[in-house]
């Protein structure tokens, strides 16, 4: 029954109709059953633009209920414009409690970050994914990449990483760093910094990835091994800073750089606003 009023018109709870939610839930179940495999789904046109989180929004809309507490972050922050917009959307159409506290949230929808605070059992992390296909920049054709995944034919990815080492002396890929899920599928972790990749490995939380424009859903179930691709003599490593957060002093978190005056003076602060505030 339509029960939520948006601008005078009746929409279903959490915007999507129940048939569509069932279709998305079926895709999610399949994705959980085959970790890292991209499941095509009948993505709908959402009232927010493609590329702005429509995949994540559809996944969240399909799993959210009135008992949930939702947190939305973009670039790690709760107060960036798109995070505000998506949080407002769900507060409006799903009548759901929202929070900025990582520990309090049952569902966290995110763009480009994994929270610094370790996630726990029962939490769901929903990623917004622009290009779900990790091989896309190496092979633009979907018909080809589908075959490569089916055959676990991942040489092209290894070669590209090797070329990066040959050219730069290191793997110069910094975000959207490819991972191997459960020893079977290479997966795009979405454009999170590689700093966050280790948090995906054997996480107690369920990870759901939604790509709206490309109409794909994939998942990493709790406690699933997620390995960042590397070589024995060039092991995977994450970004480090010599600076620490100017607000909370953290030396462990991902830092954003800000230019604070015309002379180009720089200041570093935590990208994760909730983590930063809880430490001050």
């Amino acid at each position: 029954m339509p029960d939520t009023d948006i601008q005078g018109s009746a929409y279903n709870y959490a915007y999507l109709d129940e048939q569509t939610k069932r279709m998305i839930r079926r895709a999610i179940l399949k994705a959980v059953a085959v970790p890292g495999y991209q499941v095509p789904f009948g993505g709908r046109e959402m009232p927010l633009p493609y590329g702005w989180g429509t995949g994540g929004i559809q996944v969240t809309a399909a799993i959210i209920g009135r008992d949930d507490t939702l947190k939305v972050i973009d670039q790690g922050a709760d107060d960036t414009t798109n995070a505000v917009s998506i949080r407002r959307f769900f507060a409006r159409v799903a009548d759901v409690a929202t929070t900025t506290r990582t520990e309090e949230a049952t569902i966290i929808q995110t763009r480009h970050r994994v929270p610094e605070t370790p996630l726990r059992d029962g939490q769901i992390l929903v990623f917004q994914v622009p290009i779900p296909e990790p091989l896309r920049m190496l092979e633009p054709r979907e018909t080809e990449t589908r075959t490569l995944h089916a055959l676990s034919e991942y040489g092209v990815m290894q070669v590209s990483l090797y070329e990066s080492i040959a050219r730069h002396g290191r793997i110069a890929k910094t975000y959207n760093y490819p991972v191997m899920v459960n020893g079977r599928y290479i997966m795009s972790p979405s454009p999170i910094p590689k700093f966050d990749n280790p948090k995906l490995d054997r996480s107690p939380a369920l990870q759901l990835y939604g790509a709206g424009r490309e109409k794909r859903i994939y998942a990493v179930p709790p406690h699933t091994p997620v390995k960042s691709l590397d070589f024995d003599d060039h092991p995977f490593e994450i970004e480090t800073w010599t600076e620490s957060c100017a607000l909370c002093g953290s030396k462990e978190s991902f830092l954003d750089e800000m230019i604070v005056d015309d002379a180009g003076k720089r200041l570093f602060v935590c990208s994760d606003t909730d983590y930063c505030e809880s430490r001050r």
Partner: protein
Amino acid sequence: MYVAVKGGETAIAHSLELLADKRRGDREVAELSLEQIDQQLGLAVDRVMTEGSCYDRGLASLAIKQARGDLIEAIFLLRAYRTTLPRFGASEPLDTTHMVAERRISSTFKDVPGGQVLGPTYDYTHRLLDFALAASGERPSAATAPAEPTDRLPRVGDILQRDGLLEPPPARTAAEAQDLTRQPLVLPADRPLRLQNLARGDEGFLLALGYSTQRGYGNNHPFVGEIRYGHVPVSFVPEELGFAIEIGEIEVTECDMVNQFAGSHDVPPQFTRGYGLAFGHAERKAMAMALVDRALRAGELGEAANSPAQDEEFVLAHSDNVEGSGFVQHLKLPHYVDFQSELVVVRALRAEAEKRREQTVLSQAAE
């Protein structure tokens, strides 16, 4: 000292208010009504309905008003509404031989059964700004001949087909029509699905691709077999009745493009078809669609497919302007985490390069 900016919520609310204000413009100027948009900007309404995949002049007019005339934004608004509507089923295929045509031309024959009907078109206008339009003032109604009550307006293609000169149109299959707005596009796609994608596709994109085939990127020597524009009845079979009833009429533009084909092992030389259909009056769109449809049949007809317009994955994946507009403009969203990662690595690479350079200079000096 910098403090993380709070209050994004208020800023967004203010931005929305400003937008609404901007949309209304100078309050001294009368506000546009939806009827005015429908009646006087009718071709914009047609485009929004076509690419919005929703035949509703009122909703399309509202979308155009809300989007301040940005048609891609209007298409987006209409689609986002359409997607929430329940689906009763699929209509019977339109039979455009039963069209009450306001315009119907063929460029392959001087005269055809049913005649050449020019109708309302910009084709024969001189593109001189009509300053009389800048002043208000009513103009008299144009004289129209009474519509001749004909049962059928035969297609030029049917006549060619009788002699075996033109391939027959694909047979109707029992398979239920797929719906791109409910199912993901899976490649390779069959022709009905491709046509569905092209019908929703951006007019500018299809125009450029169709144009590219004419300039040698996948040429297939097209002729306009026929373009017709007018009203056609829509029929639907309600489950409880079990037979078709007419539920209304819609305006469409149909283009049957006739293309050269040299023949192959199995098929003698004959003409082949490219097909375009759009809501309302949209000849540019229907023709571009027909050119691209034919270009995408290269594989099926055993032609070399080396040009962009012949590349199914390229065309179908990039034809949608709502998808393209969203993804291009998402670059406006903050990317400072990714950019920070890039900064870290570029600085490290630069430091290493600098060190290598210094070492080279030192070793050269030592020699």
